């Protein structure tokens, strides 16, 4: 996180806000409710209290405007800049302006969730600048998140509490949900949820995030929903069927098929739609073998084989992983095939297995494939 420096914060904990005008995108009642909730995101973790006034000068004046709208920072029409806000100070300080040329929504993934945009802008109104943590609310670019399950990320909590301290009157019987922490590729104990190829790249999934390895070998971290709005977080497995040019994500008993950035029509489907027996309730990893054109589904120490050409489950499964991959031990948590080799993750160890010599060629650590 970053702050605006020079102690740019409010010298008091009781702040006023005023909704100066409204957007036609939502009802006034919705705007009132959404903006109130967005302020509560910050009140919940600090001693700050917000009181709404309907006339006169409030600390935080909230307005909607398009193009030139009365300050030196004109908006730019649809897309691009969605809103801006000013650091704490008298006058325009603390005020938040929303670009009326944008479509603001209260729930759908179409347009921009006013709740998320407002909660971000109010972070500025209270003294936070932008964060380089891709999971932080104060990250500069917009990413859809479910407003019903939103919890202020740890980075933002650290930032705002560095200015105002923690909320001292929390109810010990109703502890707040723990702030989500952005996974760290340098964490030696990192256990990935899933790994896959994607059009020649390698992608690594953990919680709400995935890393992609850029051309120069650098790991770039992104929110899953910043690429695929409809995709789930905390997935169990992922595999790319290169023959179909589709990425499959699996979570519990559901399967999502993605083509590029788009969810394939008719998905999510059930796990059994992949040919797995209905008794299989959860899988821990999956990979598509482009040489044999078979998809392998792992359930901890066992695995199933699905023949993509004949569209049937191969007989004689499930097999013990050690039976099909001599030398590979432990529960399989992620798997993928790359450059003709099979990589089977068991916790933070990676077994590199050669299907030609039918043996484990190396046992690697996470950081060998996912650079720190």
């Amino acid at each position, binding site marked *: 996180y970053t702050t605006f420096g020079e102690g740019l914060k409010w010298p008091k904990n009781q702040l006023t806000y005023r909704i100066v005008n409204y957007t036609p995108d939502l009802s006034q009642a919705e705007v009132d409710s959404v903006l109130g909730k967005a302020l509560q995101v910050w009140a919940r973790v600090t001693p700050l209290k917000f009181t709404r006034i309907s006339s006169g000068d409030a600390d935080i004046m909230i307005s909607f405007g398009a193009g030139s709208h009365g300050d030196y920072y004109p908006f730019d029409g649809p897309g691009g800049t*969605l809103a801006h806000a000013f650091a704490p100070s008298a006058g325009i300080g603390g005020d938040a302006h929303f670009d009326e040329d944008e479509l603001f929504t209260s729930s759908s993934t179409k347009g921009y969730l006013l709740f998320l945009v407002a909660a971000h802008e109010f972070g500025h109104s209270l003294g936070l600048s*932008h964060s380089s943590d891709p999971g932080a609310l104060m990250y*500069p670019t917009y990413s859809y998140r479910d407003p019903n399950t939103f919890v202020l990320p740890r980075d933002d909590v650290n930032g705002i509490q560095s200015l105002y301290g923690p909320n001292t009157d929390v109810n010990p019987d109703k502890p707040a949900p723990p702030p989500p922490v952005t996974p760290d590729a340098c964490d030696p104990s990192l256990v990935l949820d899933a790994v896959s190829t994607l059009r020649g790249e390698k992608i690594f999934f953990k919680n709400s995030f995935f890393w992609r390895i850029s051309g120069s070998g650098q790991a770039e971290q992104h929110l899953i929903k910043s690429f695929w709005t409809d995709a789930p977080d905390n997935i169990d497995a992922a595999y790319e069927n290169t023959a179909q040019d589709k990425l499959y994500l699996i979570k519990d008993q559901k399967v999502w098929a993605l083509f590029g950035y788009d969810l394939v029509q008719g998905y999510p489907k059930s796990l059994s739609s992949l040919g797995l027996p209905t008794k299989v309730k959860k899988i821990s990893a999956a990979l598509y073998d482009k040489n044999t054109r078979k998809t392998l589904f792992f359930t901890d120490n066992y695995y199933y084989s699905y023949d993509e050409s004949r569209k049937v489950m191969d007989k004689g499964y499930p097999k013990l992983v050690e039976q099909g991959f001599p030398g590979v031990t432990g529960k399989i948590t992620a798997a993928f095939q790359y450059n003709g080799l099979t990589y089977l993750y068991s916790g933070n160890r990676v077994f590199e297995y050669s299907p030609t010599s039918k043996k484990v060629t190396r046992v690697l650590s996470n950081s060998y494939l996912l650079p720190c």
Partner: protein
Amino acid sequence: VHSGPISRQADNDDALIQSYLKKFYNLTEQTGPHSKGRTNHMSEKIAEMQKFFGLTVTGTVDQETLQVMKKPRCGVPEVAQ
């Protein structure tokens, strides 16, 4: 034999890049139409933006960097005047 057309930023991408760096990374006008100083200053600002977003720092705008510049975002700059 040349290795094919040198990929050029489309003109409107050039304008977008300039505007983005001015708005958010305090890119300032440098004297002289193509002075070396101007190019270095631009490259520094691109590198600064790439570093902030965890992209590969090259000082030149590649596809990934352009994609981030086109994403909807907040109007508050990372590097203020």
